[in-house]
């Protein structure tokens, strides 16, 4: 029983991080129609910045918010300096096929990931950095019984739920959120209604960058940060949002938690080597029986 609960809570806090990564990916996908592989580069970079600040004696929360701003600013910079010009160019260029035009920004995002990793390697000499968690990582004790989770697990899950609620409220209740949804659904009509879709898209990159940075900050106490340390999380987060249905915020979060539980249970009851096999079997199963993902809209948004 203890083992089961242990796996459940480990899965929950790992899943929360995958959910964040997936959420960040969905935010960019809905606005810009591309998977931003640079996202974990942004998160890694901002986690390094946080570790530097904390090492210099700054308060954790100051470092936390500076890191969010770094992640968000990187998001804005990628959109404005790379994606916008690329889209403009490929919009007028004569290319072999439309899918080629869609692929170019995605490949560019892979390139940006590489650049961010190299630059981080140069600045921080490729060394592993870390910082302690803001709350205890020792198992909780209630009435003499050791609980299968730590304060940090609760903290992680709490932050993710908070971010999910805030993002949903923002999209559903505010006019800017409405503009974001409208731009994602039909950018031409949105523009005719007076919405500046370009700025709205950049806002998606900004929010996504901040969300991704939170993910980076939440894993660092457990695993430390190095230029490539978030690659695996990116792959799992990407899988989570495909399982959830790419354009669904809730789907991506559920996909994240689902994979968190699968990974935790396999590492407890089976051998860790099976993790990847299991993840990709789930992914292939979903693609086969429900290609739009668990919560994706049936008709492709981009036609």
């Amino acid at each position, binding site marked *: 029983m203890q083992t089961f609960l242990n796996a459940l809570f480990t899965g929950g806090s790992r899943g929360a991080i995958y959910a964040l990564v997936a959420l960040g990916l969905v935010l960019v996908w809905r606005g810009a129609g591309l998977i931003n592989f640079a996202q974990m580069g942004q998160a890694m970079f901002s986690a390094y910045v946080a570790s530097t600040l904390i090492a210099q004696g700054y308060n954790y929360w100051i470092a936390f918010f500076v890191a969010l701003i770094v992640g968000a600013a990187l998001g804005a910079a990628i959109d404005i300096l790379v994606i916008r010009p690329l889209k403009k160019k490929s919009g007028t260029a004569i290319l072999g096929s439309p899918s080629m035009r869609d692929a170019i920004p995605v490949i560019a995002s892979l390139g940006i990931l590489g650049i961010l990793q190299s630059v981080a390697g140069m600045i921080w000499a490729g060394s592993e950095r870390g910082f302690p968690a803001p709350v205890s990582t020792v198992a909780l004790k209630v009435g003499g019984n050791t609980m299968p989770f730590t304060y940090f697990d609760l903290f992680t899950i709490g932050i993710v739920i908070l971010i999910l609620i805030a993002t949903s409220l*923002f999209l559903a209740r505010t*006019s800017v959120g409405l*503009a974001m949804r*409208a731009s994602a*659904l*039909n950018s*031409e009509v949105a523009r005719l*209604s*007076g919405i*500046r879709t370009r700025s709205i898209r950049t806002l998606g990159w900004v929010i996504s960058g901040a969300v991704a940075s939170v993910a980076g900050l939440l894993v660092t106490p457990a695993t430390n940060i190095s230029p490539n340390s978030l690659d695996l999380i990116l792959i799992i987060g990407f899988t989570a949002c495909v399982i959830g249905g790419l354009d669904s915020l809730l789907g991506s979060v559920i996909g994240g938690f689902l994979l968190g539980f699968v990974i935790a249970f396999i590492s407890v009851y089976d051998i860790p080597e099976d993790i990847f096999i299991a993840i990709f079997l789930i992914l292939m199963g979903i693609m086969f029986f429900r290609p739009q993902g668990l919560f994706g809209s049936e008709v492709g948004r981009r036609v």
Partner: protein
Amino acid sequence: MNTVSPLLSVSGLHVQFGGLTALDSASFNISPHSVVALIGPNGAGKTTAFNAISGFVPISSGEIEFQGKKISWPKTHELAALRISRTLQGVGLFSGLNVCENVMLGADTQKSSNIFTDLIGASGKSEKRLREKAMEVLSSLGVAHLAERLPHELSYPDSKKVALARALISDPLLLMLDEPAAGLDQGDIDELATIINEVKRNCAVFVVEHHVDFVGEISDQVYVLNFGKIIASGTFDAVKEDPEVLTAYLGSSRH
């Protein structure tokens, strides 16, 4: 006949797609409360002219005056503030939103509220007013009963009416309709003609249309495009006798 100063005046509009000249110094004027049709054979540049005015395609040159004032060529998102609205050939309703929400989005939502008032719910009142306005427009087009439906549940003629309602909710000064009669049967077309005659009491209508009889019925003035050039303009009756127009267009496609 142009005694009133035009609401919209476009001159010397040039649009180039690579080596192809899509529009060659096209000029047109639209008087307030008039219905102006842009007609011409397929590929003549009618929709391109619409897209150029809407900021969907970049122009090589061209000047635009609106309400008697020379303005810089508008970007798409600036049209709403000028009170110019348009429909699209592909209808283009937001698939995840119901009919009423779709219509509400046609109002210039960005100017009336901001993120802070939204979050504390202060804009609830303005949203209520917007919803009432949307219902008003929907019922004037006879589709108020569809308010809660989703776009994929609508018939094609009804979805065109909803798209029209979305264009009308902002009280436009100029309404641009891209092939409003396409895909409609005669009954729907007659209804549309009535609607347009009704609408023109409040705004000018600029329409791209293939359906010649329909154009004859609704339009005060017609511009004929051929190979990107305006080859004739005037009333429908005058234009249809124009020999150049007859060879280019009416002679071949009139039934």
